[in-house]
């Protein structure tokens, strides 16, 4: 079987996704056994000319959010060139941190542009940032900021190795939804639109004991050294584990860092912000309106906290606000 042609591209982001792919360590050797990397500007400085021959890309891993016109063109171009397009990382999947700019809507006419004497030229910024699905149809998602290696590896095996992997009994398959792990094991493509992560909430794999649901006082991260082994939310930290998709294995919560929601909302959650409001304030330790109001007053920037990675694509009120959505290119 010929090697699969693979492209990896970073739009607006921090390139941690590319580094996460490089972080596959020993698996990188096995990976290059099935894949021919034809386009990876971050690593090899490839130019767009590489894509000018008419051969299709088999799998494209697209990282980063769509924040500039260049990002949008890259998304359209790679969608047209690739048979399978994967949104890799929280930015590509949900808009990520850059998506938070959507909280303050910009007037397109007020956006700064490059004049002839600006050097280097400024990128043409879009007035609204979106994730990859806001621009083109996406086939698979690998969430996380950055995606963890087990999930990336499962994704590579499922999409690139085409059932030829010697190591199909992947160390990550156990945590994936059944449909995906079965597909990985059988060497067929997982259901279209699958997310390479768990189905439940992070709490399901968090090692901390949940005891009494009561929120008596909010602590910011620097104000409290959390007790080992007790639920962080019950100690007064904003931990978003209960609204967030699992798959990470509770890495952050295990070391006392509250979940920040980089895997996006869990399957059963309608809106992560609403879920967090409900989870935190239903258990406020207050019987009077005055007390509850005082407790609520300590919270700052709820939208930026609860939709830290997902505002552009998953917030019920602000999502889907991309300037355009080009479905035609995929011919769907």
């Amino acid at each position: 079987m010929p090697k699969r042609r693979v492209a990896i591209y970073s739009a607006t982001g921090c390139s941690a996704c590319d580094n996460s792919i490089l972080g596959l360590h020993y698996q990188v050797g096995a990976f290059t056994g099935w894949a021919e990397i034809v386009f990876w500007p971050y690593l090899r400085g490839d130019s767009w000319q590489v894509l000018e021959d008419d051969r299709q890309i088999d799998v494209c891993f697209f990282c980063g959010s769509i924040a500039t016109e260049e990002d949008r063109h890259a998304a359209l171009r790679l969608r047209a060139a690739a048979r399978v397009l994967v949104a890799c990382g929280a930015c590509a999947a949900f808009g990520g941190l850059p998506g938070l700019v959507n909280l303050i809507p910009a007037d397109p006419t007020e956006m700064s542009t490059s004049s002839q004497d600006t050097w280097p030229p400024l990128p043409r910024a879009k007035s609204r940032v979106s994730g990859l699905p806001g621009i083109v149809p996406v086939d698979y998602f690998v969430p996380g900021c950055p995606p963890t290696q087990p999930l990336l590896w499962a994704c590579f095996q499922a999409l690139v190795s085409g059932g030829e992997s010697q190591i199909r009994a992947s160390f990550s398959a156990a945590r994936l939804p059944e449909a995906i792990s079965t597909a990985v094991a059988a060497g067929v493509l997982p259901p279209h639109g699958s997310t390479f992560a768990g189905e439940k909430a992070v709490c399901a794999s968090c090692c901390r004991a949940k005891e009494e649901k009561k929120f008596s006082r909010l602590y910011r991260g620097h104000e409290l050294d959390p007790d080992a082994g007790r639920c962080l939310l019950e100690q007064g930290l904003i931990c978003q584990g209960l609204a967030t998709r699992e798959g990470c294995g509770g890495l952050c919560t295990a070391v006392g860092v509250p979940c920040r929601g980089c895997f996006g909302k869990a399957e059963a959650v309608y809106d992560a912000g609403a879920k967090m409001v409900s989870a935190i304030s239903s258990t406020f330790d207050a019987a009077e309106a005055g007390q509850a109001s005082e407790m609520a007053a300590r919270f700052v920037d709820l939208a930026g906290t609860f939709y830290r990675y997902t505002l552009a694509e998953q917030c019920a009120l602000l999502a889907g606000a991309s300037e355009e959505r080009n479905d035609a290119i995929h011919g769907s």
Partner: protein
Amino acid sequence: MTQFEPKIVAFLCNWCSYVAADAAGVARLVQKPNVRVIRVFCSGMVDPGYVLKAFASGADAVLVAGCHPGDCHYISGNIKAMRRSFLLHKLLTDLGVEKERFRLEWIAASEGPRYATVVNEMTEQIRKLGPFRPASGSKPERSELTCRKEG
């Protein structure tokens, strides 16, 4: 041009506020027809997700009404609704939903006239505010940002 008619989604508790709405109708009180009533068993079951979903589906305002504190059929469901309302207000403000568009009211079964007053008052308020457009590009007043600048 026709006048803007606000759409208001009202979650009314089965034991108090829904009965009050019924009583208001039976008493033939004048009420604006802008309210879409959803009967729920307790104001405490109105998850903030329902409120966001109402806005996301085109509501211009959401009213949640339950029994007065102490009168809840389920002892403390309305207290839960009260606790949530503050944080929910903050989240909505952050997302560009004006404060007037979400309201939590205590309306007892016998308070039909009060139900009519609340509904009429709210309709007129929202009519003045205009339609709610999520992500319309309007510049909402963000509570947090202005707070931080001052502090």
